[in-house]
């Protein structure tokens, strides 16, 4: 049976992990490769690495890092952050990334989705959508959620699919950081609407939130960052919990 995926997300700045990574097990928790390997060993099903470096100079560091990750991590991983053209993507794929996620650039230039899907295949293209409710409508935001756009979540997700996106990574900004649970209602609606997998993001605070995202929200995968980084939830415990609740979960050897 196809299993539900658990995905830790790592923010990378200038080649180092940021955002409160705190691990006793690791000598250097700022090293994304060591952290990625550790998550893979713990049973993470995939990894996401988001580059939040500000300059092009630093982006070159990210490509080198992607190569290091690919050399050491034996599970699939997605890279994203600031990708705006085929030229940005080719070196990442050449370095060994399995998928790329695009966000703001796709909103301002939707053709980018078509171009990437055509050049590299739909399975490489993850459309990341940040949205929050504005006047009771799920409204797409860009630039780390700081800028509202005209686009609405459901129509944009559907358009993304028809342009060739292989997956949707939906972050509810209303839930992100609140630890009050994932946005299960829009997740469920996205799942009804789309034929491609949906990754839930934003709001995880405890293990039952993951269960809700999968059972009620019908998400195919769930992503979290700080919760894993601070060790508030350990991936083996989470997977055992979900498995005990009869969800299809990958067991590792």
């Amino acid at each position, binding site marked *: 049976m196809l299993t539900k995926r658990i995905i830790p997300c790592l923010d990378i700045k200038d080649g180092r992990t940021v955002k409160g990574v705190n691990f006793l097990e690791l000598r250097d928790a700022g090293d994304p490769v060591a952290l990625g390997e550790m998550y893979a060993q713990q049973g993470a099903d995939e990894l996401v690495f988001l580059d939040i470096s500000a300059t092009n100079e630093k982006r070159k560091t990210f490509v080198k890092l992607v190569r290091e990750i690919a050399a050491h991590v*034996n599970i699939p991983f997605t890279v994203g952050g600031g990708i705006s053209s085929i030229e940005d993507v080719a070196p990442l794929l050449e370095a060994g990334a*399995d998928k790329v996620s695009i966000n703001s650039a796709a909103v301002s230039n939707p053709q980018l989705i078509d171009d990437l899907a055509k050049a590299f295949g739909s399975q490489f293209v993850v459309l990341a959508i940040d949205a929050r409710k504005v006047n009771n409508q799920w409204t797409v935001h860009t630039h780390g959620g700081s800028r509202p756009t005209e686009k609405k979540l459901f129509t944009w997700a559907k358009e993304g699919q028809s342009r060739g996106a292989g997956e949707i990574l939906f972050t509810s900004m209303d839930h992100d950081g609140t630890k009050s649970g994932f946005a299960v209602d829009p997740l469920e609606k996205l799942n009804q609407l789309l*034929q491609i997998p949906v990754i839930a993001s934003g709001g995880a605070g405890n293990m039952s939130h993951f269960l809700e995202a999968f059972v009620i929200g019908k998400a195919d995968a769930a992503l979290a960052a700080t919760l894993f980084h601070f060790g508030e939830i350990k991936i083996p415990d989470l997977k055992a919990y979900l498995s005990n609740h009869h969800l299809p979960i990958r067991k590792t050897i």
Partner: protein
Amino acid sequence: MKIAVIKYNAGNIRSVAFALERLQVEYTITDHPEEIQQADKVIFPGVGEASTTMRYLKDNRLDDLIRSLKQPVLGICLGMQLMCKHSEENDTPCLGIFDETVRLFVPQHHEKVPHMGWNSLTTINDWLPSELKDQFVYFVHSFYVPISAHTSAQTDYIQAFSSAMRKDNFYAVQFHPEKSGPVGEKVIQAFLQQ
């Protein structure tokens, strides 16, 4: 042992190379006919679309070369599908090593296509170690090879399909062993021991 990874316009060659490095196996990535023919083992990776890839193989005369190989050859993902007779993906005639037709997944109950993620090997026989039964491997594909006499592992998605195959010296897996954690490493090692 000399391992040749066939170099062509496929997406996952780098990932396969890294997986071999993690196993401390030496390899060359090559499209040079003699180098491929003289290798002890050959890996035929693949991510992409069937018709474009078959055209590339033909243009570079790799199609006859692959068919004529006598040493163990491992097709991965699209590599496995291209070893079949025909693919429904853009109605493409393929290499014909396996006498099967590659079919498009048709959802029955809102299942998503592509089949993407971790799924289990429900039956295991032939060249794969029996300890891999019910273990999980990583898939990304929209087309599948039906169960046949050459099936060496099955997986269930919409229906049971061939997740691994073998005929004579030709071995094939639909999943990505290079991305399937320790289980995938065991699959690669099982092939390298043939």
